[in-house]
């Protein structure tokens, strides 16, 4: 890598910043001095929360090589984020803003150039069983029946099939697919497949559950039903969840906090706490409070898109 082939492109308010690759390897202080971000007030309010921090991301920078131009482009630009135990945090932003890349980096599927990811205060680098990812496409192994799809992660972790099978039945119950253990994925509807996908992730008993647009591939009605189901499920199992979605209503319905990412490269534009009490039900979508929250989030995203030159 030569020293001038990195161009960090981001527009934040009026300041135009250009970051050279040397900075990527420079110390934290130098970087912190070069780039300082407006911290949303709500972030400070969060400090009063004394639940344990499960997932902590500091100064995360992810670059990628643009094959067309040969430049290294920055997809995620110095993101800080803490997710506490039992919290449901959702990232929203325009398509292609880098939020999926961000999630992939946390899962360990994409290498980051700078910064650190900690799960339970332990630095992680690469995939691991402390995080489990649910993808947009159910991506079930088509030659395995439902039961063995759920235990796939466990088997990779070295669990004996017999022991894994016992565990599977619990999760089949949880996602209400009793009687479907011996079905092949092609025999299930899209919503059912996605439930199995969810169970596969939960079966690994991860510290943090990562959801990458989990319902984007489903039709609108099934999506609504699945959102309600996930709401119920999360309140039952009490997992720490980080989700990425396009759907603002989905984000507001499910989350404790909604993080808005700026477009390409991604950084945190806003961190909004959703003050709706739990347990929640799907019909809160029609409430005025809900609509107001949605339009507030939408206006932030839209404002950012206009600055960025339009998408």
């Amino acid at each position: 890598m030569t020293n001038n082939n990195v161009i960090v492109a981001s527009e934040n308010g009026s300041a135009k910043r250009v970051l050279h690759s040397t900075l990527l390897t420079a110390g934290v202080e130098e970087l912190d001095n070069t780039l300082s971000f407006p911290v949303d007030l709500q972030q400070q309010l969060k400090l009063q929360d004394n639940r344990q921090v499960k997932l902590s991301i500091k100064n995360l920078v992810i670059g990628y090589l643009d094959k067309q131009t040969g430049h290294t482009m920055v997809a995620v630009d110095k993101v800080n984020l803490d997710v506490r135990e039992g919290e449901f945090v959702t990232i929203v932003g325009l398509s292609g803003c880098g939020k999926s890349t961000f999630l992939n980096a946390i899962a360990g599927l994409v290498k980051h150039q700078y910064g650190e990811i900690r799960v339970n205060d332990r630095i992680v680098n690469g995939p691991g069983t402390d995080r489990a990812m649910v993808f947009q496409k159910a991506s079930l192994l088509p030659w395995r029946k439902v039961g063995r799809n759920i235990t796939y992660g466990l088997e990779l972790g070295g669990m004996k099939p017999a022991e894994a099978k016992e565990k599977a039945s619990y999760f089949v119950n949880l996602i209400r697919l009793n009687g479907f253990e011996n079905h092949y994925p092609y025999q299930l509807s899209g919503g059912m497949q996605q439930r199995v996908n969810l169970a596969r992730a939960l079966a690994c008993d991860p510290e943090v559950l990562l959801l990458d647009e989990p319902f984007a591939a489903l039709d609108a009605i099934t999506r609504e039903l699945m959102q309600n189901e996930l709401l119920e499920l999360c309140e039952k199992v009490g997992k720490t969840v980080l989700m990425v979605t396009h759907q603002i209503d989905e984000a507001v319905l499910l989350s404790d906090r909604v993080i808005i990412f700026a477009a390409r490269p991604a950084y945190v534009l806003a961190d909004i706490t959703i003050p709706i009490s739990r347990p929640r039900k799907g019909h809160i979508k029609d409430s005025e409070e809900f609509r107001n929250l949605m339009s507030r989030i939408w206006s932030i995203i839209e404002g950012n898109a206009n600055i960025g030159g339009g998408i």
Partner: protein
Amino acid sequence: MRKLTVFQKSNTAKKEKILNLLLGSSVITLFLVSWELLFQFKVVNPLFISAPSRVVLAEITIIKDGSLLTNLSVSAKEFLLGYAAAIIIGFPFGIMLGWFKLIRGSFGPFIAALQATPRIALMPLFIIWFGLGITSKIVVVLMSAIFPLIVNLRVAMTTIDSDLIHVARAYGASRWQIFRSIAFPTSLPFLMTGLRLAAGRGLLGVIVAEVFGGAEGIGYMIQYAGSTFQTDKVFAGVLVVAVTGITLDFTLDRLGRYFDRWRGEVAVH
């Protein structure tokens, strides 16, 4: 999009199948009967074209005098040895070809050249190298059967669903685990297709080898009967080859469907 359940073994499906079989065989019967009539009324020269009835008689004769069994066992031996060798070499080679880019690049030109050359042209070469005995025939079968296997396994390795690999990696699978839990199951249906095609080609190889430079076997029998104008016996031999081919194809097709059962057939509406 909604899937409808399909009961493959339902009664209606069975009925349809039987009907199709009946319609199909009625056309075949028509074909055979008109062939027989053409012969009986001397429309065709009996020296060149036999008749179904005479083929059956010839078939009985070669079964009775044992010549069919002798020749068939020779051909079977050549086929089985060559086919087995093709699997033993072709299976790992095809997988490596698909899995490792370097091997793909290195052997690519050879495979392309060998594939493009009609293998039959290598027959004189094999005769020079391995003589007129059984070895040269086994090599011909091997060379004919190996390419469908290699090609199918290579394609299998390169068409693995990248989403599945993504999932496996996210769950922390090692390269070997990815191979075992994803690449291998993906390749099974392809392997079955490869085996089926390879059987057909291998059979072709046996016949070719025997027609060209044999002193025994079904191919030789056909060739010899042909050059001595025993037309009935030629057809009798061809019938044996055809029946063997169809049986082999059918069996391997069934086996392939068994390994493919997770794909299912669904109607979507």
